[in-house]
């Protein structure tokens, strides 16, 4: 018995999946509700194939035979092989093509997932990222043989610096939250270098979960800031809490309510007044590119989510990339390496190098130089759009959000009233690139919750908005359409929301039991967490 067999994590709960001969039960005739995808039972790749089957053909051993023990003594060798799948190439292809069809994706429909900026991913980016000169470049290739990559990274650093209004960039962090970690560590380094040990980081109660989580990981303490009636930072609360034990204020602007904080200059003044740094969570940068710059607002540190504002495809949950830009005073602490234009290289034919000589640097946050494959895509994006295009993108993102908000607000319902009566805007009148509705009235009057609305939207063919975030809005529904959607799509989405509310007025059960048409219906998450089954049970095939 191997180590794996001694635990409970992979006991099959007896649901299904025990090697049915094939995936389909008898298909429906008239009047059955199960769609073809619903009839297919989920079977993992480990439940397919047969002993000895394979796709890989190993190159022949072209070197002289050597005694196995000399190559690798038996005590270092595995007892039994890893029980990987045993499948042919056609089986792999069919398996993954098949399960891919059980995903909804951005290329198939509207994906207004608030805070995630699900904008179209141009396929040009995949094409250029796949060029062997980028995709098959080893990270330890000498600088002189990687000049194209270094130039690309340098140019991207410059472009991000310009968009942020902060001059110094590190491309290293792997995602937004990794950028946050870098940012808080930079803040610590900054204060420590000045002989100060500040312990507190202010985060508004609208903050994304990664902000407080990051603060803890970086060894500091979270102090929450209240939100005022307009959805911005409560200045009094800020003044009360801003003391010289505060290392940093982390802010998203526009914030997670989709609102630009009009007091940003005053906020910066207060924070800088106590000697703390101001951190910009760049997840919402898509609202202000070329229109307003964090650096100009007084921020010291900014992270970008290249997978949001700069259209890296989201990959089902990554990869992403979270570069940071910082002000002069924080620059000395930036992680290594940074790409620099080499001194003495000519303006016409500049050369670039990875610079590790930064004595005050906080060090590395990961291996190598960051997610270069993402840099290629986002750089292609920036070159495609250019200065004006980036500004246009933000303008249309904001226009689309406000249009959708207005359409929903005005959308009449058959029983009288409009969508806004059940799903009012939580704060403010206009919004930036996204807005947050409250499902409170809907819950009280129509007896369906935001979750039910979201599940019913699945039947209408839409990815639901973000739900239950930010936390301070009751039954929150956070809608971010992005600039790459058409007015037809926005209208159709508004119609769907209105239709669901109308259905609920008739019969709340419709939404409460939704969805109906998805490959699986509502899943038992409680059972999943209670007795976790997080890997497949492997039954040794006989023979």
């Amino acid at each position, binding site marked *: 018995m191997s180590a794996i067999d001694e635990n409970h994590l992979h006991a099959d709960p007896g649901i299904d999946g025990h090697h049915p001969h094939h995936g389909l039960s008898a298909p429906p005739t008239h009047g059955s509700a199960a769609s073809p995808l619903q009839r297919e039972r989920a079977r993992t790749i480990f439940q397919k194939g047969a002993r000895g089957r394979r796709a890989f053909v190993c190159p022949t051993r072209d070197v002289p035979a050597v005694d196995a023990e000399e190559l690798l003594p038996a005590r270092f*060798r595995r007892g039994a092989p890893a029980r990987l799948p045993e499948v042919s190439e056609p089986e792999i292809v069919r398996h993954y093509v098949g399960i891919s069809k059980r995903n909804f994706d951005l290329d198939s429909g509207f994906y207004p997932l608030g805070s995630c900026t699900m904008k179209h991913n141009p396929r040009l980016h995949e094409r250029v990222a796949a060029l062997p000169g980028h995709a098959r470049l080893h990270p330890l290739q000498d600088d002189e043989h990687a000049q194209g990559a270094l130039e690309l990274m340098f140019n991207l650093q410059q472009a991000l610096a310009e968009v942020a209004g902060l001059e110094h960039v590190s491309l290293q962090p792997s995602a937004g939250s990794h950028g946050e970690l870098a940012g808080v560590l930079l803040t610590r380094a900054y204060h420590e270098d000045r002989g100060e040990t500040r312990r507190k980081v202010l985060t508004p109660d609208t903050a994304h979960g990664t902000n407080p989580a990051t603060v803890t990981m970086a060894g500091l303490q979270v102090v929450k800031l209240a939100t005022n009636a307009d959805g911005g930072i409560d200045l009094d609360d800020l003044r009360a809490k801003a003391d010289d034990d505060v290392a940093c204020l982390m802010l998203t602007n526009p914030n997670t309510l989709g609102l630009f904080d009009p007091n940003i200059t005053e906020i910066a003044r207060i924070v800088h007044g106590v000697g703390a740094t101001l951190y910009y969570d760049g997840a919402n940068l898509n609202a202000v590119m070329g229109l307003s710059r964090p650096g100009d607002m007084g921020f010291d540190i900014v992270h970008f989510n290249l997978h949001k504002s700069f259209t890296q495809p989201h990959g089902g949950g990554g990869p992403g990339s979270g570069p940071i830009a910082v002000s002069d005073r924080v620059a000395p602490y930036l992680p290594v390496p940074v790409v620099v234009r080499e001194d003495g290289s000519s303006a016409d034919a500049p050369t670039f190098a990875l610079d590790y000589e930064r004595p005050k640097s906080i060090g590395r946050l990961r291996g190598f130089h960051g997610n270069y494959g993402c840099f290629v895509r986002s750089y292609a994006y920036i070159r495609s759009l250019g*200065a004006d295009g980036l500004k246009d993108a933000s303008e249309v993102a904001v226009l689309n959000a406000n249009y959708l908000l207005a359409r929903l607000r005005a959308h009449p319902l058959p029983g009288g009233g409009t969508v806004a009566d059940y799903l009012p805007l939580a704060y403010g009148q206009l919004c930036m690139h996204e807005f947050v509705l409250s499902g409170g009235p809907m819950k009280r009057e129509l007896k369906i919750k935001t979750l039910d609305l979201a599940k019913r939207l699945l039947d209408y063919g839409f990815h639901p908005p973000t739900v239950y975030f930010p936390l301070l809005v009751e039954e929150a529904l956070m809608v971010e359409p992005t600039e790459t959607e058409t007015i037809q799509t926005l209208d159709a989405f508004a119609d769907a929301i209105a239709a669901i509310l109308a259905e609920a007025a008739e019969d709340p059960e419709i939404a409460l039991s939704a969805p109906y048409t998805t490959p699986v219906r509502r899943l038992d998450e409680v059972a999943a967490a209670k007795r976790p089954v997080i890997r497949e049970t492997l039954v040794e095939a006989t023979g």
Partner: protein
Amino acid sequence: MLDAIGVGSVQEIFDRQIPEDVRLGRGLRLPAGQTEQDVFAHLSQLAARNTSVEDELSFLGAGMYDHYVPAIVDMLTERSEFLTPYTPYQPEISQGGLQVMFEYQTAISELTGLPASNASTYEGPSAVGAAAYMAKLHNGRSRIVVSAGLHPHTLQTLRTLAHGYGMEVAEVPLVSGSAGGVTDLDAWARAIDGETSAAIFAQPNFYGVVEDAAALSAAAKSPGDGDGPVGAAAPVVIAQADPIALGILASPGECGVDVAVGEGQPLGNRLDFGGPSFGFFAAREQYLRRMPGRIAGETVDVDGRRGFVLTLQTREQHIRREKATSNICTAQALNALAGVVYLSWLGREGIVELGELLLARTHYARERLAALDGVHKLHEQPVVREFALRLDADVAEVRRRCAASGVNPGVDVHALSGREADRGVLLVAITERRSREDIDRLVDTLAAAVAASDQQPAGEAVAA
């Protein structure tokens, strides 16, 4: 659209929300937008100025390896259905992604011999950092003992992060001399005390050498010569492993390791100048509720159908905020997909065959190279697919000479680690893409380069 909103212009929407003093009154200082064909041309030109592993005979490794990525990996990762969704927050319409995670977790669990795998972390070195943080959450202690055999990037990353975690890092040296190259077991046992939160080593280590993982685990967990810990007081034993080598090496689980993490790039991921790839993270069951990152779990829907969900989310930042076990949010799902497709492609027998091939070719290369004048094995211990040589000539110069012949003989270790002891050390990686013929060409090229460099005092640069 403006009418519906009730504004006269888009500008007005901004004017009404953004105070004038923080509006950017000018255009961005960026190049103008370009057509698709021009962007393609520009990015192609940049690509052409890089020397990829297609452009030379490359023996670079040290953490990322030029394994052959089968065509089905590209085909599947490029499918819109996998490429363009985000994290599966709505499981009813994300069963594809969730099942991939579940399968991936199974494959990693098999490889590592540990039951609980998450669905991916960023990459190798930061995964080691994440494991150390989990150890801190687990036992509340603050001392990390590391083997000097960890990759320099891992050591550097760990130091950066440990500062944030409020932990300190103590390094245990490798046994020196050609019979060494493995973690000094005595020093390791001595370094680990009751205050030690985590004990971390690499398998194989940075120099390619196979560590005695079972001995290192055992030593960490049982009383040593000094004041080693026992039982509950034992630290969390963490191995940073090479997933390809795990195809033939005793699994971390078998060796008594608690947490196995590592760089996933060798599993079907592109080199991509260092990223994106993925970090794998697998642990014993008792760590499950302190693990970082997404985890997919099996369940049923209201009609009794088998399905998958993100599970144990109460660990995560979006639920637990400052009390979360990690701040990770967006991870490396697409790269993990590539990983599990690759592992399915290799298959149960294939991964063993591949490992045996690498063993044999690496042995051949090491013996042939070490037989050259001025070239010596750095250590004698077994290696799997990478090994270190000491040259009697300046490594930088030798590498330049080889490059002129279209051969990249491997990594200049001193340039990477900055350690004085690594001066003169060349790290050579062998993958299944490097045939005997290729290795023979390396032998000839390196022989000539070392011979030519011998003529000159080591360390003196040659004009390119």
